[in-house]
């Protein structure tokens, strides 16, 4: 499976977590693909931390340089949506008014600790709003490919990359599996795309239990 396919599978599965009535913030990367897989009847409000509540799809024509999503790409405003400054945006986030935050991840550990802001000496993206989204969102879902390109695991006993926020992730979705983060550690909830339990065991460093329907 190539990376593009994996990203689509992850985004499609993540879309099932989004329910009508929710306020949702999407991170850049795989999370930005999630709206493509939402059923038309799902009525959600997307919040973008650069100052939009009620963000709509990419405009067909006449993109406006002053209206973008948090990744810098043109978007639209849905009827009833509004704009606001960065302080108000993070008030919404820290105060828990955003129901679901879907973030890309580099690593997640067995207790839901998230690393997603830097690979020292390699990539220096920076933390952006991720620390506050992790702090404030009632439900934080981490999306990532199951392993590095060379096969090294990303679901870890302990994160080896610098931490974004401790014990914040509630669910991990990869192209192979869905894990819930519980007080007792990870619980494998689903196997995706015909992946076997044995395959998941081999490429997951953190220990996990099985949900009843997988036993």
């Amino acid at each position, binding site marked *: 499976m190539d990376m593009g396919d994996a990203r689509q599978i992850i985004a499609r599965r993540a879309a099932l977590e989004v329910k009508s009535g929710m306020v949702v913030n999407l991170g850049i990367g795989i999370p930005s693909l999630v709206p493509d897989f939402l059923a038309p009847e799902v009525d959600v409000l997307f919040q*973008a*931390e*650069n*100052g*939009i509540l009620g963000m709509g799809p990419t405009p067909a024509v006449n*993109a*406006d*340089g*002053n*209206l*973008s999503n*948090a*990744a*810098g*790409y*043109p978007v639209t*405003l849905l009827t009833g949506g509004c*704009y*606001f*400054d*960065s*302080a108000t*945006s*993070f*008030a919404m*986030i*820290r105060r828990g008014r955003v129901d679901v935050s879907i973030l890309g991840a580099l690593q997640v550990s067995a207790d839901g600790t998230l690393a997603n*802001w*830097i690979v020292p*000496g390699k*990539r*220096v*993206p*920076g*933390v*952006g*709003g*991720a*620390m*506050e989204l992790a*702090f404030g969102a009632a439900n934080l879902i981490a999306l990532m490919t199951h392993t590095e390109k060379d096969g090294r695991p990303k679901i870890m006993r302990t994160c080896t990359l*610098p*931490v*974004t*926020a*401790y014990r914040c992730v509630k669910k991990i979705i990869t192209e192979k599996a869905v894990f819930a983060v519980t007080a007792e550690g990870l619980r494998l909830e689903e196997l995706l795309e015909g992946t076997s339990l044995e395959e998941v065991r081999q490429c997951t460093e953190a220990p996990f239990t099985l949900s009843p329907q997988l036993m």
Partner: protein
Amino acid sequence: MTNKVTTYDHVASLLFDGMTLLFGGFGGVGTPPGLVDTLIQSNVRDVHLVGNDAGFPWVGMGKFIVLGRAKSLVASHIGSNPVAGELMTAGKLQVEFCPQGILVERIRSGGVGLNGFLTEIGKGTHLQYDKPLVTIGDKQFLYEAPITGDIAFVYARKADTFGNLVFDKTARNTNPFVAMAGKVTIVEADEIVEPGALDPEEVVVPGIFVTHIVPSSGYNWKWIWEMPDKLSRDERPSK
């Protein structure tokens, strides 16, 4: 009412080596293009920058950062400007990362004349740096210091000649707080109108925070989504 409209030449005379410069904008959206060009042409160096991000190499404050004349940068991320990452790794640009909403509150704290605030966000991470830990009851918090600037660069949709400001869509972002936190606040506005032309109920930043106003010619860069496909975001367009 004071008429604060001035020229870019006058703005250039206000900039100095080693200044702390706050700038509005998010990925270049809401970063004043004419003021960035004035800074680039000024030959001013060793600038301490504070803003949401490093833009792109050809967009926003990124255009200045790639020249290597910034000494430090406080920002929430620099991922869209790989040159900023290279300068950081080479020890030529000192970068302090700050969570996005915390950064804007630090600027606001400076802008509203307060002495900082406490938060749990970032505690125990690399971004704690050497920030003081404050214990209240059985909880520990990070102390976040206020930020002010010698100069603040702001982009507004409209300004009246006194400096009352109105913003546009997602170009508002950090601009209202950057405007309040500058010792000298310079606004680049798409439209400059006479006092009384703005609806007083619509004014976002009262003109009392604004020192100078210059007219804008609009964005003079291509956005990432306007770039030809073959030009990746990691490539720097030649001049």
